[in-house]
């Protein structure tokens, strides 16, 4: 049995847990805890360690989805997480400009150092306050090659699109690798 994994990351409250929960065949083993600090009181719980979901691909292959905790940057976990990783999704709450800076920092870090395919999911596009995709692209300073995809994390079709776009991106980068090697 072979296992591979993808990582779902992004700022606090972006919708990482919801995203994994929507497609996972097991109950997401998330390590949620009640939020105590008033500053973060926008919802009841937050992910403290990691979300963990699973999709069985076929008899010999399982895909795991890992969600990083949103409250602190996860540098310290990056090495553990990136081991055996196919790629990752960066989720952004499209309605919360106060989180764009952190999203940008995460992206900047990856862009500079992580040789791993990724896509950016502009989440909560169903809400009225959601910023438009082209505005987000500029606000997050994504150049035109980076895939920025509208997302509604509790909608299965939407989550599937994001995962397929990421896999597609992985295929493309594999092609480039192969061309370079030959």
């Amino acid at each position, binding site marked *: 049995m072979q296992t591979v*994994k993808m990582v779902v990351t992004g700022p606090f409250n972006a919708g990482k847990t919801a995203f994994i929960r929507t497609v996972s065949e097991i109950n997401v083993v998330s390590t949620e805890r009640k939020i105590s600090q008033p500053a973060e009181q926008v919802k009841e719980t937050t992910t403290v360690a990691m979300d963990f979901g699973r999709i069985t691909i076929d008899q010999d292959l399982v895909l795991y989805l890992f969600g990083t905790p949103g409250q602190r940057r996860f540098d310290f976990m990056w090495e553990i997480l990136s081991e055996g990783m196919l790629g990752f999704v960066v989720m952004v709450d499209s309605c919360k*400009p106060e989180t764009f800076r952190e999203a940008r920092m995460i992206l900047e*870090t990856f862009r500079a150092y992580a040789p791993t395919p990724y896509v950016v999911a502009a989440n909560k596009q169903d809400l009225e306050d959601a910023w438009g995709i082209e505005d987000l692209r*500029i606000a997050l300073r994504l150049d035109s090659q980076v895939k920025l995809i509208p997302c509604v994390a509790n909608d299965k079709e939407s989550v599937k699109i994001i995962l397929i776009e990421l896999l597609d991106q992985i295929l493309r980068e*594999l092609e480039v*690798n192969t061309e370079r090697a030959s």
Partner: protein
Amino acid sequence: MALKGNLRDFSLTQLLNLIHLARKNGILHLENATTKAWLGFREGKLAYGGLNLEENSLVAILYRGKRINAAHYRTIKEKSGSMSDKELGLLLVNAGYLNQQEIVQNIQVYLVRLVHRLFLWEDGNFHFENDAPLPKGKILVRINLENLIMDGTRQLRELDQLKDEIPSLDIALKFCDHPGASVRNLRLNQEEWKVISFINPKNSMKKIAEAVKLNDIEMRKIAFGLIQAGVVEMVKPDGYSAKRTINIGIPHTNPAEQTSLIKRIIQRIRSL
């Protein structure tokens, strides 16, 4: 679609950057505890604006710009009655009071000062009204935003933000290649020009700072200004990317097997 938030989280400089790059049409509304302000844009250029606290008619602008004195101001106001700015402008030009260029310049100066005052707002809600109708009777100008953006970053006092925006000085800068990105129209000071002359994907910001004799903060500030003005972008210093071979975390397989594995996953996800 919305474009709204608070200036604490997304600054006026960043908003101008967004409006500039997306060549937006519409009105940016700003509101803090005491004041409401609006800036109107056409194709990413500032066209008009005002504050609820002060008169922003052409007469008032000319008076404030000391182009007319208090007595003139009162007379014109009385006589012009419900005249629009455009009509009044025409009247003043025909009467040989001042020429069209002077009128436009006075409006531009007023608007630039207005934006400078708005840069001082640390707090305040904003929302952008897309494709708002143009105000009737107003004289519209066209002010490029790059220089306003540079002014805004020069005033930046929040150093933490600079560290967030430019996490490391090991990164290099390169000129953007999108149309409209040009340093030609920028009003830069000597140090900023020096930085420009060193911009090259081979030079990390650290190197540039050493060459121009800037400290970390000064370097970050100039780089951030140029990035926001849409003139340069951050890149990995040359040599860094050459080694880049993606690691997709499937050990012990050849490329063909990797490709087929990814295709299997795609098929499965489609079927979910």
